[in-house]
C-alpha cells in the first residue's frame, strides 16, 4: 500500500504512522460527559468499505493527513492535510 502525501507525493506506507479513525479530530467539550468522550476515544463505526482515518507522515514532512480509503480493497481514494481543512487552526 502507498499513500500520496499532498506535499511529498507518492510514498511507501512505511513512512507513515497510523493513528486511527478521524473520529478523534472531533473533540467534545471538556464537560460533555462520559458518553461523548467514550464515543470519540473508543467507539468506532469500523466500516467494511470506505473509511477516513488519520495518518502522520513521520518519515516525511510531518503532516497529519486524513486518508479516505477502502478497507476491503486497500484502495486509496483521497488524501488531505488536516491543516488544509476548512476551519483548521493556522
Amino acid at each position: 500500500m502507498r499513500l500520496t502525501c499532498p506535499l511529498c507525493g507518492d510514498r511507501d506506507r512505511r513512512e507513515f504512522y497510523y493513528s486511527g479513525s478521524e473520529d478523534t479530530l472531533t473533540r467534545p467539550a471538556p464537560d460533555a460527559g462520559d458518553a461523548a468522550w467514550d464515543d470519540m476515544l473508543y467507539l468506532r463505526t469500523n466500516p467494511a468499505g470506505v473509511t477516513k482515518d488519520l495518518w502522520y507522515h513521520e518519515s516525511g514532512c510531518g503532516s497529519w493527513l486524513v486518508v479516505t480509503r477502502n478497507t476491503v480493497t486497500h484502495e486509496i481514494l483521497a488524501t488531505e492535510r488536516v491543516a488544509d481543512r476548512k476551519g483548521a487552526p493556522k
Partner: protein
Amino acid sequence: MRYSGWKVITEGLRGNLGWTRAWRDPAPKAEYDAIIIGGGGHGLATAYYLAKNHGMTNIAVLEKGYLGGGNVGRNTTIVRANYFLPGNSEFYSHSLKLWEGLEPELNYNVMHSQRGHIILFHSDGQRDAAARRGNAIVNQGDDAELLSVSQLKEMLPYLDYNQTRFPIYGGLIQRRAGTARHDAVAWGFARAADQRGVDLIQNCEVTGIDIENGRVTGVQTTRGPIRAKKVGMAVAGRSSQVAAKAGMRLPIESHILQAFVTEGLKPVIDHVVSYGMGHFYISQSDKGGLVFGGDIDMYASYAARGNLPMVEHVMEAGMTLMPMLARAKVLRSWGGIMDMTPDGSPIIDKTHIEGLFVDAGWNYGGFKATPASGWCFAHLMATGQSHDVARRFRLDRFRTGHVIDEEGTGSQHNLH
C-alpha cells in the same frame, strides 16, 4: 455415532462405508429459545455449553458461510494460559483446564499437544518481568518455569544466542501450553452440539436484528425471519457490522494479522517459541510445516490479506532468531480479520438491548479462548449474569476506565 480407535479399525476393514454425517443440515425453525450468530469456534462452543451446562437445546447457530470457515480455521493454533493481569489470568486458566479435558468431552480428536510454550527474554529487566509473570501464573494455579540460557540451549539449540541486537538471556516456559488442530476444534464442538439437539444452520446470513421496546425479538436472515428472545453475537472480525444492525457502535477496530507456513520439514521445532522483541512466534505443525507470524499490519482493514512491509518484518525477525529458517521455503500466507479492542482484551457482556449479548474483541488471541469463551458466553446468555472468570470483560470498561492492558502499551485503538 461414537468415534473410537476401535471404530477406525472396524470401519477400515469394512471399506469405510459405515461413517455417517458428523452433523445434520436442518432448515431453520420459526422460533428458538436462543440464537447464536456465528458458526465459528466461539459460537459453536457457546451452543454446546448452552445445551450441556444449561439444558437449553431449542437453540440455533446461524452461520453465513460454512461452519468453522473464519478465524477458527485460519490461525496459528496456540493454546496457552500464561497471562499476567487479573481478568485474563483466571479466564485463560479456566480455558486451559477445559482444553485438557476437551477430547473425551467432545469425543473428538482435536490433536491437543501440550508441547510447551516459551517466551524468550533479552535483558535483565525482561528477566525480572518474566519472573514476575511466572509468579502470577503460578499463583493462579498454572505452571510456569524460568529457564536459564544453558537449559534453553539444550531445548532450543537452533536459536542464535549471541545476536548483537537482542542476545537471549533465558526464557519462561509453560509446559502445559502447546497447540491444537484448529479445524478439529470447530468440528468437534459442532458435532457435539448437534448431538445435543442444537440446529446448526449454514448459508444463513443475519441481515437484521429485530428490536421492540428495547428488547430483542429475533433476527432477519437470508433464510427468512427467526424469532428468539435471546440473541448472542460471536462473529469475530465482523462484530462491528453485526452490532450495527442493532444500532450499536463497539469499541472495536478491525485489523489484519498475517501468518505464514513453510513447506513440510522433518521435526525440528518441538515447542512454541515467542520472540517478543521481534513480534515473532513459531511452532511446527504435525504435517511438518513451520507455522509463524508477527504483529498486525497496524491499520484498519477487512481485506483478509496483508501488505508486504509486515511480511518483510516477520521474515527479518525470524532470521535474527533462527538463521536456519533461511533454508525453508514459505508455502503460503494469509491474513485474518482481527476485532481489536483498545486494550487488547476481549468483551463478553450484555448490551443495553435486553436479550442481546456480545462476545467479541478477541484480538489476536481468540483460538486458545474457544472453550472458555463458549462456557462463559453460555453462562451469560442462560443466566443473565457474567461468569466469575469473565466478569471483567465488560463492554463499558473503556468508559469507566477498568481496562485490561496485558501488553502495557496503553489503551487506545492504534496501539494493539
